[in-house]
C-alpha cells in the first residue's frame, strides 16, 4: 500500500471529492446492519409527527460515508486514528428512485509529523449536514 507522500502535502491540500447517493433501500439496509430501527429512518408518518421534514438518514451512515473520502485517499482505513463529527442538519431521503446525493469534500487542515488532520465538508442539496467533521490519519500506520 502506498501512503500519500507527506512531502507533497501542505495545509490546504484538497482530497478527491466523493458523492454518495442515499436511498430508502440503503437506510433500511443500514438500519438492519446497525440495529438502529428508529422509525425516523424509515417511516414518513413517524418522522413528520416528530417535526422532521421526512425520513432522514442515520447520522452514523452519513459519518461513515464521509470518512470514505479520507480512507479512499489514504488507501488504508487502519491509518485513521481519530474521527469526529457534529450532526448539524438532517439528510432528508425522499421515497423515490434518486434519493438524496451527499457530496463530501475534504482538505488538509494540519500536519504534525506523520499525523495529518483532514477537515471534511458534507453537503446535501447545498446545505451543510455535518459540522466540525475532522479525521486524523497517521501515515506511518499505512500498510503497517
Amino acid at each position, binding site marked *: 500500500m502506498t501512503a500519500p507522500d507527506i512531502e507533497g502535502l501542505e495545509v490546504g491540500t484538497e482530497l478527491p471529492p466523493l458523492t454518495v447517493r442515499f436511498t430508502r433501500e440503503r437506510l433500511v439496509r443500514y438500519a438492519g446492519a446497525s*440495529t*438502529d*430501527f*428508529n*422509525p*425516523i429512518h424509515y417511516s414518513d408518518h*413517524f418522522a413528520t409527527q*416528530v417535526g422532521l421534514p421526512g425520513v432522514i438518514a*442515520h*447520522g*452514523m451512515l452519513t*459519518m461513515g460515508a464521509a470518512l470514505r473520502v479520507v480512507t479512499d485517499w489514504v488507501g488504508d*482505513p*487502519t491509518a*485513521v*486514528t*481519530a*474521527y*469526529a*463529527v*457534529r*450532526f448539524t442538519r438532517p439528510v432528508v431521503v425522499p421515497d423515490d428512485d434518486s434519493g438524496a446525493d451527499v457530496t463530501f469534500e475534504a482538505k488538509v487542515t494540519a500536519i504534525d509529523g506523520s499525523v495529518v488532520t483532514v477537515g471534511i465538508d458534507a453537503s446535501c442539496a447545498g446545505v451543510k449536514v455535518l459540522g466540525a467533521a475532522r479525521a486524523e490519519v497517521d501515515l506511518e500506520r499505512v500498510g503497517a
Partner: protein
Amino acid sequence: QPMFTDPELGLALRRIVHGDQRFSYRRPLRAGDVVAATLTIDQVRMRSGTEIISTSVLITDESGDEVGTAAATFVHSRGTE
C-alpha cells in the same frame, strides 16, 4: 444498546437524536480480538423538556489495553408516548 433498553433510564431510541460522535483508535481491531466496551454516562443536562446526554465508551482488549474510545452526545425528549 443497553442504554436504550435499561428500564430504569426510561430512554427510548425513537425519541433520540444523535448530536455528535467522536472516535479514537489506538490500534485496528483484528479478526479474533475479544474486546469489552464500557459505556459511561458522563453528563445529563436538562433543557426545556429534553435531556442532553453525554456518553463515552472505552473499548479494551483481553489484557486490559485500550483499543479505542467512542464518545457521543444524544438529545432525548421525554415524550408522552
